[in-house]
């Protein structure tokens, strides 16, 4: 019965796509083709689907997997980079890029992405192991080429999508009382994260730095390369301004406060809430495009929330 259901699904998706080229059924159909070992058909479907739905994150992710299946790591990485532009906290893209960079010998970039992935899913064994390798290679500072990719952990099981008609996996066996539950693992047992580097993916180009600051004005994470101003002084002084910002937008019936962009003589500054107890401060060059600063601020917010959840 389950096999018949799957065939019916395939037929339905095919008909949907044939009738309406803009149908989102292209996505499950492409996944099915990939499972069936028809990567060319899957790829064609994805590319056509993305023409009509260029911001579909799942389609970009699937295309990345197809490229990876074909051994084209560069194109896979390009697709996952697109995913991150659309969805900065996408676990699959962070993991995929981390593995790609590790294979290519770029341990530093691998580490950045895998650290973020591990903040989202601290219990993912493959990410944890890859992060350990990336950290070793990044911290080693050796000029010798990285070890062969055969030392990498096997691809995570989640990269191999289950057949839709398969039974759901059995729930994990209950943890024995003497063993700590995985979720309860203490922060010091996790792969160490350098708080100064958590915003490294945002910093660069016109963005000079990003800091996570608590309500006392103390810096929790991030770094700032600004010579034309005292960022810590700004953090300390802005606390009162943030309260007023919240009240102003409420009074204007504009809902909750989401952020504040300050255009100053020397820089463009953006302050936004990360949680109830912390804000993110971003500094950019005076000539930075405002939209770009706002986009990077959103990226930084996602990372900050994960960091605080994992380590606060």
């Amino acid at each position, binding site marked *: 019965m389950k096999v018949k259901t799957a065939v019916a699904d395939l037929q339905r998706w095919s008909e949907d796509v044939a009738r309406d080229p803009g149908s989102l059924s292209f996505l499950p159909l492409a996944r099915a083709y990939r499972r069936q070992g028809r990567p060319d058909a899957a790829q064609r479907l994805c590319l056509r689907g993305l023409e009509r739905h260029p911001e579909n994150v799942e389609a970009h992710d699937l295309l990345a997997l197809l490229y990876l299946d074909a051994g084209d790591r560069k194109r896979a990485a390009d697709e996952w980079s697109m995913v991150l532009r659309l969805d900065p906290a996408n676990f699959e893209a962070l993991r995929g890029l981390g593995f790609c960079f590790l294979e290519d010998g770029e341990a530093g970039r691998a580490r950045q992405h895998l650290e973020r992935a591990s903040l989202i899913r601290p219990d993912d064994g493959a990410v944890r192991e890859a992060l350990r390798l990336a950290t070793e290679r990044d911290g080693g500072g050796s000029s010798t080429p990285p070890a062969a990719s055969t030392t990498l952990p096997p691809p995570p099981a989640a990269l191999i999508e289950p057949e839709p008609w398969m039974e759901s996996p059995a729930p994990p066996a209950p943890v024995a009382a003497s063993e700590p539950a995985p979720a309860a693992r203490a922060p010091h047992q996790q792969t160490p994260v350098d708080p100064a580097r958590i915003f490294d993916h945002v910093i660069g180009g016109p963005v000079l730095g990003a800091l996570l600051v608590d309500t006392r004005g103390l810096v929790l994470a991030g770094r700032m390369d600004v010579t*034309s*101003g*005292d*960022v810590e*002084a*700004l953090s300390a*002084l*802005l606390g*009162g*301004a943030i309260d*007023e*910002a919240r*009240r*102003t*937008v409420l*009074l*204007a*019936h*504009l*809902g*909750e*406060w*989401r*952020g*504040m*962009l*300050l*255009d*100053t*003589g*020397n*820089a463009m*500054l953006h302050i*936004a809430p990360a949680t109830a107890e912390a804000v993110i401060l971003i500094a950019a060059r005076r000539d930075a495009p*405002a939209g770009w600063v*706002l986009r990077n601020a959103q990226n930084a917010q996602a990372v900050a929330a994960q960091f605080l959840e994992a380590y606060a």
Partner: protein
Amino acid sequence: MSDELTAVVERVSRIDGVRGALIVEASAGVPVVAELTEGVAGDAVAALAASLYRRASTATSAATFGGLRSLQLEAEDGHVIVAGAGDLLLVVVAERAAQLGLVRLEAARAAELLA
């Protein structure tokens, strides 16, 4: 001068998505010229926006980032933009889908005029 201020407010108010535009006396937070849609509490927004601008300006100057040219508040349902350098500020209340690029451009022009 008052004709010019009125012209600024009228021009900004005509931008799609703008719910209100005011010229506000910076130190007292009192509106001088205003064009508001119903439901926008002009006096209160003027007072708070001016106070916020003064506070943010003090903070950026004290932290040696230079004088504040404009401030843009983002909220769930819209934005408040404040611009100016002297005794008068332009305060704009805009919906989320407003043409912010145009608003920022007009705010920058108004700031030069008001300085």
